[in-house]
């Protein structure tokens, strides 16, 4: 199969190899609807020729905005058939973010899901009408009375494609065979934790090399199932569902709605799963909460099985072989407790589970291994097509991210920055030679921006962003992410932002976990209304103080948190405090909450602030609030002045 150079060529191959095998499955009105590989081939033919009939040419781009649906994949592949790149825009982006991507990436055609996305585009229409030729939508609900001439439905484009095929019967096959590996397949937005997202150009060769590398590590099979529920605009989802899906030929399943995802995953029982830490963390806290609510016998059994499982997982992490006694316990725990639990979570058939995109806490890692789930950490970024380092089966250490993927080389620069090189490394940033030069070094090394080192077994350990790693006043190396991750082990802490490097001591802004703290409050007869109300309660400050003290116990004295506050709202991507992949944008928070940071380093025990809130529809509101600041400075310790 190594002859295919581009994704559309892989598609044609799959349609020939197993025409009747399920390629995509979508749940509609509670029933799974299947699309076979030959049907995907036919629909891509219709839609791509429709785009050709409308005037899309090689070198132009299309953007896709919507939830994960078959149309998303069909539109992406159709653009690629014509030698064009597709750009995924996060479906929850606010209007300004859509404008930024669409205008900067020279998008000619927009493929959008529904009324919500169409409304965003219409709001921007004055800025876009010069360049964007058409808006193609695939969910017609509510759009009947829209009279914008450039609006056209997905099926109408497919019909145009069929007519076009009659005039040009060979255009589709010719376009596909003209495709080359070095053509740009997708333009992917970087996560943008430090600045606005950059647009990385990923070629077909990059995507296929990555799929080759990954399947060389873990042998995905065509009969495997995968549930695609994370945004397709995220490189991680592109890499597994689109690249590996086409490369191997396994089936992609799309949930009916975001809210039904958990149930839909259970129905499918996927063999492969890839998700950022947030999803795994949520699963753990769901299991914990449900277990607390279950009966006495179940609780005891679960606690026992988990204790055995953890012991066994630790033995495996150490590379020890299991004793007969341990193997028996492992089987028993599986049969009595875990098989049922995993079935509830939809993880019973999982062969490979991956986490990536950010660091996953050791406790969560250990939990899944105790359950018998083969959870592995991967490391990569948009610029390395999502992945360049991964754990191998049976060689998993939770403080590392594993070994380089075949085809990738990883080294450490003299200043500690991780560098990556290989066939999966991106070509360039879209029309941004300066940024490209800053990231892509000579001989093809990509600067990742992360600091790290290799351990004795050749595993890569990632510390933090290079720009965040600092020396404290007494010379201690300080990584805010390390402390933040420690704080987040507490089930009461959802997110934390730690400050320290430039300051005389370490402080933190903390987001409580509304669900878990709320439950705690209910159990303690503490009444509350909103998040803001709960976060400012004296009692809540006390339990968080406990969690902070616990974290401090494991830290060198200079890195201990002296003062913290609980934020009045959850950090939110609509307020640009998080990226669309829900990573903290430290620099932005630094600017936005300058007052709070000043107060953290001041002497007051509370601060009055006025902030802006941006709603999903772009409207804004003001919010005024007083926040309390908790001081943990030990009485005898003196604040060391700069």
């Amino acid at each position, binding site marked *: 199969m190594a002859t295919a150079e581009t994704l559309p060529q892989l598609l044609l191959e799959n349609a020939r190899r197993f025409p009747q095998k399920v390629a995509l499955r979508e749940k509609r009105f509670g029933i799974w609807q299947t699309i076979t590989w030959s049907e995907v081939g036919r629909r891509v033919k219709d839609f791509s020729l429709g785009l050709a009939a409308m005037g899309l040419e090689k070198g132009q781009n299309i953007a896709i905005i919507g939830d994960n649906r078959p149309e998303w994949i069909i539109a992406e592949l159709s653009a690629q058939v014509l030698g064009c790149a597709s750009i995924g825009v996060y479906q929850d982006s606010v209007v300004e973010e859509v404008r930024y991507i669409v205008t900067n990436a020279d998008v000619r055609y927009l493929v959008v899901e529904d009324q919500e996305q169409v409304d965003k585009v219409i709001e921007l229409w004055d800025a876009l009408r010069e360049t964007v030729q058409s808006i193609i939508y695939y969910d017609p609900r509510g759009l009947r009375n829209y009279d914008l001439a450039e609006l056209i439905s997905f099926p109408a484009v497919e019909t145009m494609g069929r007519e076009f095929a009659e005039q040009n019967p060979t255009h589709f096959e010719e376009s596909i065979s003209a495709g080359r590996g070095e053509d740009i397949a997708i333009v992917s937005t970087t996560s943008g934790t430090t600045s606005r997202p950059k647009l990385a150009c990923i070629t077909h060769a990059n995507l296929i090399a990555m799929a080759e590398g990954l399947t060389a590590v873990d042998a995905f099979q065509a009969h495997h199932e995968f549930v695609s529920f994370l945004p397709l605009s995220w490189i991680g989802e592109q890499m597994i569902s689109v690249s590996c899906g086409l490369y191997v030929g396994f089936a992609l399943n799309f949930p009916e709605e975001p809210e039904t995802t958990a149930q839909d995953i259970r129905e499918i029982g996927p063999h492969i799963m890839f998700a950022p830490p947030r999803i795994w963390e949520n699963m753990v806290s769901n299991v914990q909460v449900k277990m607390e609510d279950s009966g006495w016998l179940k609780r005891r059994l679960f606690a026992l099985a988990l204790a055995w499982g953890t012991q066994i997982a630790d033995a495996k992490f150490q590379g020890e072989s299991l004793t007969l006694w341990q193997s028996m316990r492992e089987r028993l725990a599986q049969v009595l407790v875990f098989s049922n639990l995993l079935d509830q979570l939809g993880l019973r058939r999982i062969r490979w589970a991956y986490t990536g995109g950010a660091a996953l806490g050791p406790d969560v890692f250990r939990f899944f291994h105790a359950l018998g789930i083969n959870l592995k950490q991967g490391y990569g970024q948009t610029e390395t097509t999502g992945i360049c380092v991964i754990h191998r089966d049976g060689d998993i250490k939770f403080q590392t991210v594993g070994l380089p993927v075949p085809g990738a080389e990883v080294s450490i620069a003299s200043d500690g920055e991780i560098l990556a090189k290989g066939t999966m490394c991106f070509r360039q940033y879209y029309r941004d030679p300066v940024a490209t030069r800053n990231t892509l070094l000579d001989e093809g090394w990509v600067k990742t921006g992360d600091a790290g080192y290799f351990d004795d077994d050749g595993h890569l350990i990632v510390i933090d962003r290079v720009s965040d790693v600092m020396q404290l006043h007494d010379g201690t190396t300080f990584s805010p992410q390390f402390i933040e991750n420690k704080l987040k082990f507490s089930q009461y802490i959802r997110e934390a932002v730690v400050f320290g490097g430039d300051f005389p001591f370490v402080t933190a802004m903390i987001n409580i976990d509304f669900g878990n703290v709320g439950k705690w409050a209910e159990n303690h007869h*503490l009444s*509350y209304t909103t998040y803001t109300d709960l976060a400012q309660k004296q009692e809540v400050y006390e339990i968080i103080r406990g969690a902070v003290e616990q974290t401090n116990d494991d830290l060198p004295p200079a890195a201990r948190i002296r003062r913290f506050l609980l934020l009045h709202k959850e950090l939110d991507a609509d307020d640009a405090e998080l990226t669309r992949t829900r990573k903290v944008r430290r620099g932005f928070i630094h600017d936005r909450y300058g007052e709070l940071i000043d107060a953290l380093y001041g002497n007051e025990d509370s601060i009055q602030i006025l902030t802006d809130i941006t709603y999903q529809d772009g*409207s804004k509101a003001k919010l005024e609030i007083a926040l309390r600041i908790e001081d943990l400075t030990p009485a005898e310790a003196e604040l060391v002045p700069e």
Partner: protein
Amino acid sequence: MNRRMLELNNVEVIYDDVILVLKGLSLQVEEGQIVALLGSNGAGKSTTLKAVSGLLVPEDGEVTDGSIEFLGQMIHNQEPSRIVRKGIFQVMEGRRIFEHLNVEENLRAGAYTTPHRQQISEKLALVYEYFPRLAERKQQVAGFLSGGEQQMLAIGRALMATPKLMLLDEPSLGLAPLLVQEIFQIIERINQEQGTSILLVEQNARVALRIAKHAYIMENGRIVMDGTPEELSDNADVREFYLGFTERGQRKSYRDVKHYKRRKRWLS
């Protein structure tokens, strides 16, 4: 004034031992206040009222956690008849009058806690003063009254018990806008003149916020927000989801209703 009359603290209600309807619900009504409880269908508003009045029990519901305090006494899970005597009267949703009795008989039924004839006739006069329409239809069979008159009768019947706290469940349900206005004016008068505290459950957020001193917004069995009507009317989420305004402050038209909803943030 401002003495605490009713206080619900972290109330949890379960129906049939399995169905969790309210969890961690807390709210307060101060003496002489009108407090509105807003929320969409199935949020648990009626259950909250029934938990207070004790009418949960016949529906196999139970307050399983938390406390309900009325004038300093715990009243949760008590018999509804004892709670009525303490001065709480619930006007149930859908009016629930005795259809085969006439208007006056209906009203007298409401006064069953009052033994003295003299007092009963004084109260009758008071009800007729508030609801002149009922006075005109004293002898009519209640089932033949219009919807609005039936609602007046239900409120009038509650007034007969001279409650300290009246629980009103959707008084605007199924009524023409003019009638809704009339009934709400009367509710406001009763509150001011009789000093009756009122806990009002409404889907019609606009009219409820007009007369309330304080309002709570309820979703999925818990309070997500509370404040004065002014504070709530200024909140972007309340405006969007309860008052039907767009962000520019215009009333929404059904022609412009979207097939998607903005994510709620509940920031106050």
